[in-house]
């Protein structure tokens, strides 16, 4: 199993007591997942190192739940999504879906099992075949998985279009005839065709305009309520994730640094990186923005080919700086675990999480105002 004992400890902290395999346990259980990409150099393409895209990640998603996975570029969030739907192969770790070991599946078994997990991609322009009509795009998974044929297949295609709010008359049209929002609906309908239990949504709205984003978010929420779907929702937009997710996992450089129920994460973040992320998100309110202070992180995210030792965030950590740079941050990777001051369903990977609140500057995370969305200003 995992070579890093710290991440094993981190894994057990997030796994529900049911163990993840029983019918009442989580739908998806990911344990100690490591996905490395080889760095090949020279004419002989010799491997000279590894990009540690995902480095010991464990989490679970309950049936009917939405887990939001947030992080910046290079955090490994997209790689996790792709590994779960078996587009990428992990180096280590296990992925169980409803009790069966996804990584053990090969060939025909894997192909058949793909019905249970589907993916919705970020780019609705490149993820649909431009030479297929919408009808053909939606009929293909039905044919591949022998779900319906002939008239029944046609009826199912129309039903799918209806499910995502598109007209039946669209069957004969090609992807280029649709707007971005409509294409994303087609992508969602294609994922739904095989009646999956889990849908991995990889930045499903970030290519869309704001006014269209809300339409697609509402659609995803309605489908979840109607069909009992489970979502892994991967995104960089923290406001969108808070809206759609029941729980949120925050990633930094290949590791999960904090997991918490949505509201809790935003009201009481425990990891200094989560605090910095929240402080960086601008809100559309001029007075709040002008009075607000920010934690500006210095520098860029380090390279996952050569991550910092110990806690990976320690090179940019404002809390460590305030604590006069304790040595442990640079030497020991903190496990993801609950802390005594918070509820057990919030876990954090920081040696000093329990001291965060006394050092956290005020006004960095916007206060949640109970006032109406739009309030008149005094002139």
């Amino acid at each position, binding site marked *: 199993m995992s070579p890093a004992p710290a991440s094993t400890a981190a894994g057990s902290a997030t796994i529900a007591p049911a163990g993840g395999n029983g019918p009442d346990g989580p739908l998806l259980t990911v344990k100690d997942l490591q996905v490395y990409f080889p760095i090949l150099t020279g004419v002989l393409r010799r491997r000279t190192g590894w990009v540690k895209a995902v480095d010991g990640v464990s989490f679970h998603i309950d049936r009917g739940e939405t887990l939001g996975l947030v992080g910046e*570029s290079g955090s490994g969030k997209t790689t996790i999504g792709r590994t779960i739907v078996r587009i990428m192969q992990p180096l280590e770790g296990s992925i169980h879906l409803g009790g069966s070991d996804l990584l053990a599946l090969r060939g025909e078994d894997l192909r058949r099992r793909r019905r249970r997990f589907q993916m919705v991609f970020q780019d609705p322009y490149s993820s649909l075949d431009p030479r297929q009509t919408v009808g053909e795009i939606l009929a293909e998974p039905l044919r591949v998985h022998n779900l319906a044929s002939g008239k029944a297949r046609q009826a199912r295609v129309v039903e799918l279009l209806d499910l995502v*709010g598109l007209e039946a008359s669209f069957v004969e049209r090609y992807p280029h005839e649709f707007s971005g929002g409509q294409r994303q609906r087609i992508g969602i309908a294609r994922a739904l065709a095989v009646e999956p239990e889990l849908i991995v949504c990889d930045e499903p709205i970030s290519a869309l305009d704001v006014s269209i984003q809300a339409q697609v978010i*509402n659609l995803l929420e309605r489908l979840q309520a109607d069909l009992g779907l489970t979502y892994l929702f991967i995104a960089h937009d923290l*406001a969108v994730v808070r809206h759609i997710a029941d729980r949120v996992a925050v990633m930094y450089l290949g590791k999960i640094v904090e997991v918490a129920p949505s509201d809790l994460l935003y009201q009481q973040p425990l990891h200094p990186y989560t605090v910095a992320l929240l402080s*960086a998100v601008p809100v559309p309110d*001029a007075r709040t923005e002008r009075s*607000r202070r920010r934690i500006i992180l210095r520098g860029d995210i380090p390279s996952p080919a050569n991550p910092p030792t110990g806690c990976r965030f320690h090179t940019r950590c404002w809390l460590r700086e305030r604590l006069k740079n304790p040595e442990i941050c640079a030497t020991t990777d903190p496990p993801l675990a609950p802390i005594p001051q918070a509820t057990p369903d919030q876990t954090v990977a920081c040696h000093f999480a329990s001291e965060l609140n006394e050092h956290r500057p005020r006004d960095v995370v916007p206060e949640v105002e109970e006032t109406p969305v739009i309030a*008149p200003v005094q002139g």
Partner: protein
Amino acid sequence: MSQAPAGNADRSAHDPTIIRGGARPGTPLLSVRDLHVEFAGRGRVVRAVRGLSYDIGPGETIGLVGESGSGKSVSALSLLGLLPKHVGKVTAGSAVFQGQDLLHLPEDKLRRIRGARIAMIFQDPLSSLNPVLTIGRQITEAIETHRGVSIREARKRAVALLDLVGIPAAASRINDYPHQFSGGMRQRAMIAMALSCEPSLLVADEPTTALDVTIQAQILELLRRLRTELGMAVLLITHDLGVVAGFADRLAVMYAGRLVELGPAETILADPAHPYTIGLLRSLPRLDRPRQAALTPIEGSPPDLASSLDGCPFAPRCAWRVDRGWTDAPPLVLAGGERLADAALVGHEVACHNQPTREEALAGLPLTPGFLPAPPPDSLVIEEEVV
């Protein structure tokens, strides 16, 4: 409901002697009037900008906001003569910058202004930096071209600039090529290049859209500091209402090539008067508000800009639309009704035949008993996205 005057108030709105939308008193730095831009191709003419007017005062920051296809970027490119040749062209309007009309200047005169007195930064620094020249060479080139100083002097200045924008070890990084910089560093380098001649106007087109949120915060902080130090005006083009909230003095909201709302950022974000602006703000999930059960999207999608759009371009998606909206485009005038007193003071303007009240803006729908959005006239076929 609004008391917007009927008739062609559009003309008076383009009178260059009128200071618009709460602009600072005094001579504006840039004065755009009735700008029209068209693109021709594939047998269609796309009217991307349809009569745009605004002023920027010296040292002022305007946030030009809108979604894809609203014309916000195209309008800025057209001011600098950067529209794609033979495809896009300015068909009408003027843009007076420090006494000269940019739209009617010969190319060599415009080139002397561009990069020196007006600088531009773009969303994707990689595509606007030359991959085969060092970062230093690209900055010194601008300084040599516009300032006529020696290579040694230009180089000294380039190092100082890279230092100013927060690039560590500037004296050695100056010899790096763009690919050796991270996304955030490239954006800093591009800002250094843009500022090399101390422009009085910086046009920033989605400068942080491609960046991660923590890097975005760094770049906005940097721009905020430089803006104050150099006293320059900024035209910030973005789709992100959060970014403009803390950065812009005034907002200009565009929809389908027109301004629909103009005024102080604080006023528009707290008290939006146009149904489109109201809809945009309601469709956003916000960290500073409690979680909502469901978001309120704007139904439908933006109009086809190749069509004539005689009426109000937002009418097909608007809950407040009245009959007139199908045929007449509403002019941009002071916000009326209960907003009038404040609007006259701060210059809050809106282009709407049937302005929602504050109460309606809060509710997100018309509250007049019995009011129904006007159905399209028989002559109009509307394609609406089914939701």
